[in-house]
């Protein structure tokens, strides 16, 4: 992956000629952003997936990103901890900052970045290890603890925060793959928070879960928002409405609208948002 903020892109130029990328309506910016993105363009080879997106994520807020398949919401999310680095032919332009620090700066340590900006994926992906080792993996890797007792405490604390402790405390050393889907996802969240991230990115964290497991994760998201900034991509509009403070609507790679979630689901500002929310485009 290459990144070249100065590059003049033909697709962007073409849109500029057609009267420019339509400005995002609503309130994409916040007073004290935890993460901040300005002028993001993302390309897969020749194809542009994201067009001039600017957006802030505040600390201790849940930002939901919604939109039809292929609208670029997951691509955008993956830029926030440089997960797109691993994709061949993917090129990211624009300024992405975490606490004002450019995360695409060549001096930025990507491993450290991903510790600060954790990610939870669509399908629960526990390591083929014990429950305990799944959570202990990150702290060990990053050298966060010195003693076994500290590690025990951290594992317990993380599992408690993920709402999983009571269900697994008696079988910490059994394989994580023996857990149910919902438990596995909460384990992944515990693994993510064990290394004390500042931001948690969630890419459709409930799409493989049943309604009860989903409700537990949603409950957890609300609790986690007391300590972390959370950006969540979801296909479930009800989920976005339930868990998030602000909602961003993406359409064909563009950020159409960002507004308070209460507003977006009752009286959205942009007609594309309205059409998507009410099930007129999909």
């Amino acid at each position: 992956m290459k990144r070249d903020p100065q590059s003049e892109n033909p697709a962007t130029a073409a849109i500029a000629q057609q009267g420019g990328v339509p400005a995002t309506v609503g309130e994409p910016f916040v007073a004290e952003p935890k993460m901040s993105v300005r002028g993001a363009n993302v390309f897969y080879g020749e194809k542009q997936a994201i067009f001039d997106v600017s957006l802030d994520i505040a600390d201790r807020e849940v930002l939901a990103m919604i939109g039809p398949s292929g609208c670029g919401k997951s691509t955008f999310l993956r830029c926030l901890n440089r997960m797109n680095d691993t994709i061949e032919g993917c090129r990211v332009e624009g300024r992405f900052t975490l606490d004002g620090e450019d995360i695409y700066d060549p001096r930025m340590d990507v491993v450290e970045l991903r510790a600060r900006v954790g990610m939870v994926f669509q399908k629960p992906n526990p390591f083929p290890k014990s429950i305990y080792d799944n959570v202990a993996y990150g702290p060990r890797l990053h050298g966060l603890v010195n003693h076994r007792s500290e590690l025990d405490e951290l594992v317990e604390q993380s599992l408690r925060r993920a709402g999983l402790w009571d269900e697994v405390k008696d079988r910490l050393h059994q394989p994580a793959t023996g857990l149910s889907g919902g438990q596995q996802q909460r384990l992944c969240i515990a693994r993510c928070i064990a290394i004390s991230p500042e931001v948690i990115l969630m890419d459709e964290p409930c799409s493989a879960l049943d309604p009860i497991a989903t409700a537990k994760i949603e409950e957890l998201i609300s609790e986690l928002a007391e300590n972390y900034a959370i950006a969540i991509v979801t296909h479930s509009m009800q989920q976005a409405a339930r868990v998030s403070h602000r909602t961003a609507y993406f359409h064909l790679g563009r950020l159409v609208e960002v507004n308070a979630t209460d507003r977006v689901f009752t009286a959205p500002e942009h007609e594309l948002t309205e059409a998507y929310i009410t099930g007129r485009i999909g």
Partner: protein
Amino acid sequence: MDKLQLDQHISKQFDADLEDLKSRMLEMGGLVERQVADALRAVEAGDSELALKVLENETAVDRLEVSIDEEATLLIARRQPAASDLRMVMAVSRCVRDLERVGDEAKKIAKMAIQLSEEGGAPKGCVEVRHMGQQVQQMLARSLDAFARFDAEAALAVLPEDRKVDLDFKSAIRELVTYMMEDPRSISRVLNVLWTLKAVERIGDHAKNICEQVVYLVRGRDIRHTEITS
């Protein structure tokens, strides 16, 4: 956004459900309008038969309220409507309640009509009943029309009418009080006229509420208990 489209959902059934909800509410509106017109005519003409018909039809209005509200609840449960669809369901549910209350007021007027006709003769204050009656009937018709066309402008234009009705009501009270002081024997009959006028005035309030729901539905702004008029 000042235009509203309730069709073109991916689910055609959803389109149909919303359309049905709206048309049933308007159907109820039509029935209630007729109830008000009949009740007022019964007062004016001293026609107790017509008044009895109004009392009979009242149950039909009540049944419509319950069944439309149930339809709205089911639609929420099945579709989880959002944005304009959600506002549509909420607005219908609220308007149906107002319409049912308009029906109640029509019933009160019809009861007064029966009493007044039993007492015989055109009582004082009939002019006011006719005048205010026409005003609120127009308000009601215009509010339902604005709903049918999703026309927020038209709905807002009705709001000042309610203030006129309120002023007319106040001045009618002053006049009726004078009658009662002049001729204490007329008190019970004039009181009946006064209750009728009060019922008419309330119909104006409900028409105003429906207009506020049209603005909410179309523009997504709740103007209840505000001074917003444009």
